[in-house]
């Protein structure tokens, strides 16, 4: 097991290198360059070719692309992602300022989705073809197909504008810090509700259908029939046999969901003015802010690779038949 883990970790290095090369190429070869985009507002000034060259030099963009990649890699070795072209702040500061916000929102949403979807799926599977199963199935399919931005606006109109129950801008109210400890966190909690709902309903629908599918398979297995035949009570069958076996594919799925924890949703974050990395990534791509785009891509790539590894290890833990050598 340890040997396996180490080997997998070693494989990460060339994979990561490959990912950064491809991303670096794509980002840098996209039309338009930051000097033009940032400093001309959007082409709002005529600049002499000399000052244009000067700016390219200032941003280190006058070197050929492989030299720039080598420089980037060298800095990365010391965990230095460089400074943003847009506001000249260290990339790592910009990311760390926003990453916790995104992770917080996504972890909350993922937890809720998992905690709700497993029992929902189990129940639907155990009562297959019942009214509840059919109705929840239809409802979840409808939910799954509703676009986020539309749902978000409806929720805002209903709960934010008409009923005035929930705030829908940012993470906290103006001056929330003066409300005292309890008041501040209550305010933060209220601000989290609408964005979380928007992020959750889609994955909830997907996950619960998935849970239903995998429990259906489990329910039909011989060992469940055997358990019933030997007179085990229904609760033990459901918990000890069905639930635990249903969890195996869910765990793999959880692994696949992990990277989305840090990638952030552009739509939800921008609608709710949630200062997260999704929004940062989108802005940076549009402005060709190469260092930020590279920094974020690198961190996401590491997360994806690590989480597939974790998912594989979890799989061994959840399913005793699997061992790694």
């Amino acid at each position: 097991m340890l040997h396996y883990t180490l080997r997998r970790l070693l494989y990460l290095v060339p994979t990561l290198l490959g990912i950064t090369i491809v991303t670096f190429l794509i980002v840098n070869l996209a039309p338009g360059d930051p000097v033009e985009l940032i400093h001309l507002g959007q082409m709002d000034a005529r600049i002499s070719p000399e000052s244009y060259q000067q700016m390219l030099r200032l941003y280190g963009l006058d070197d050929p692309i492989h030299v720039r990649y080598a420089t980037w890699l060298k800095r990365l070795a010391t965990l230095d992602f460089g400074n943003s072209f847009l506001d000249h702040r260290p990339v790592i500061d910009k990311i760390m300022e926003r990453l916790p916000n995104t992770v917080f929102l996504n972890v909350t949403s993922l937890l809720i989705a998992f905690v709700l979807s497993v029992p929902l799926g189990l129940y639907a599977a155990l009562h297959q073809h019942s009214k509840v199963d059919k109705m929840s199935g239809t409802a979840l399919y409808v939910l799954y197909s509703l676009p986020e931005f539309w749902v978000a606006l409806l929720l805002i109109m209903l709960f934010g504008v008409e009923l005035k129950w929930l705030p829908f801008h940012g993470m906290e109210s103006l001056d929330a810090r003066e409300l005292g400890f309890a008041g501040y966190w209550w305010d933060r909690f209220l601000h989290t509700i609408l964005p979380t709902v928007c992020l959750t309903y889609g994955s909830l629908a997907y996950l619960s259908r998935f849970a239903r599918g995998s429990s259906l398979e489990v329910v039909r297995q011989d060992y469940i029939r055997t358990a019933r035949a030997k007179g085990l009570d229904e609760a033990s069958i459901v918990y000890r046999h069905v639930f635990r076996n249903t969890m195996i594919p869910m765990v793999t799925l959880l692994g696949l969901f992990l990277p989305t924890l840090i990638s952030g949703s552009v739509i939800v974050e921008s609608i709710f003015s949630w200062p997260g990395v999704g929004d940062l990534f989108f802005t940076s791509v549009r402005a060709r802010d190469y260092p930020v785009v590279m920094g974020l891509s690198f961190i996401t790539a590491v997360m994806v690779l690590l989480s597939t590894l974790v998912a594989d290890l979890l799989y061994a833990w959840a399913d005793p038949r699997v061992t790694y050598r």
Partner: protein
Amino acid sequence: MPRFARHVVVTVWAAVLFAGCGGNDAADQSASDSPSGENEQARAGGSVIRRLESECKTLNWVLYTTAYEIFVLRYLYDPVFDYNEASDMIPVLASRLPEVSPDHLRVTVRLRDDIHWHDGVPITAHDVKFSLDKIQDPAVPALNKEGFFEKLDRLEVVDDRTLVFVWKEPFAPSMFAISQLWPIPKHVYGVGDFVTNPANRKPVGSGPFKFDEWHSGQYISLVRYDDYHGQKAYLDRVIFKVVEDDAVALNMLRTGELDEMRATQTQWEKQMDTPEFKARYNKYDYYFPQYNYISWNCRSTFFSDPRVRRAMTMLFDRESINTKIYSGFARPISGPFYVNSWAYDKTIKPWPFDPEAAKRVLDEVGWKDANGDGIRDKDGKPFSFELLIAHGSAPAAQFSQLLQEECAKAGIRVNIRQMEGSTLFDRIGKGDFDASLSGWRLDLDPDVYDTFHSTMAPPSGLNHVYYANARVDSLLVAGRAEFDPARRERIYHEVHQLIHEDQPYTFINTVPDKRPIAKRIHGVKFGWNGPYDFWPGASYWWVDDAPGDAASAR
């Protein structure tokens, strides 16, 4: 050379000079908002919440690049000179208007002696010089301001209070350029690295408001500066909330979480046209120096002949755009100047919409359907071109579809190509296109040398269409060296006429900015660039619910 224009993806930007002009609701402004009576009634206290459509990157005046940053900086910093409501130049940090030598080469500026930064340090001529030095420093990315001072030979500091701008040649836009120089404190920004200075996000200013706090991606808060050297502001606080989505901004307006925003055409006509909305908001629409156009690449095989370009204009029904898309809110234009300025010749009417005449012209020029496939051709080349437009711009999509339909009827194939903004600007900037749809924002000075002089063709300037007319070239050179207003006006009127005849652009229209502002706010005035970007902008707004009613300002 001044930044006379900037591209905006055809969307709504708009214009001013005449406050509350034209709008059906502008008349709703209460009489107490007249400049005379307001100060006696004005009450101190309260706060106003404004919208930022995108996060600010810096609050260092030398480094700012977007309109949103200027929104905030306007409250924090005083310029040396500025333009007031009537677009007259006035001294702000200066004690009087600049003295200009008879040859227009030396401009002497004297600063007031009672001015200081928010940390109490006096503002001196060295701060002004520092600001200019940083703009011109190769290690400082300040390209959007560098151009203003390209014709400046040097800035001499005579003493702590006196500066002399020495120009290389007589340059008419130099006064406007001087108004674009705002000092920043040398003792703060001169220490350590300039571009990564911590004060870029925690500025020490000179204006009626001082910096309070900045929550990245959420809001920026400013508070009144009580030791201000000029007239004290009324509001306790001005807050800028980052709200990217238009629909969300409208909802925040409804709950009172925002006091103003820029409305889309649909919002303006639908959601903002209800009695409940109008009871709480004044709706202002105003023209500011902006126009939308289709550019025809004069080097393209299709559009090298001015007769063809005129025919294209006549094929494009600009009037129905204004009535159908903008419900009469936009104005057709005929030339490259701000419609409300002296440079714009109002006697020149736009080319009419006349498809029959256009077809006749195309026949005459030799674009005929020789092979009978329904598409005109000439020398075996079919009249089929690509029109570049920005992705995600609804007006651009509507404009281009209209053109496409009309052209199809006339035997011309238009292939609309939507592109991401950056890619589009790249293609336009290199002159690598046949036709494209864009907009320009203009400055107060009408100099359009950068956009229409033949030497400004790619890659050096903004003449992306490779327009070249010897007479226009010499007029543009003369126009920037002419200081007599009447003579200068004649020059630009002739430029207007020539460009109208040559049609390197099909001038589409200028679209007013549409802004609802809460009725509890008073003292709203308009300058040449809208309710904010002039002196004193929104610094002396005051609110009904002041003082002490902070809760409603949430």
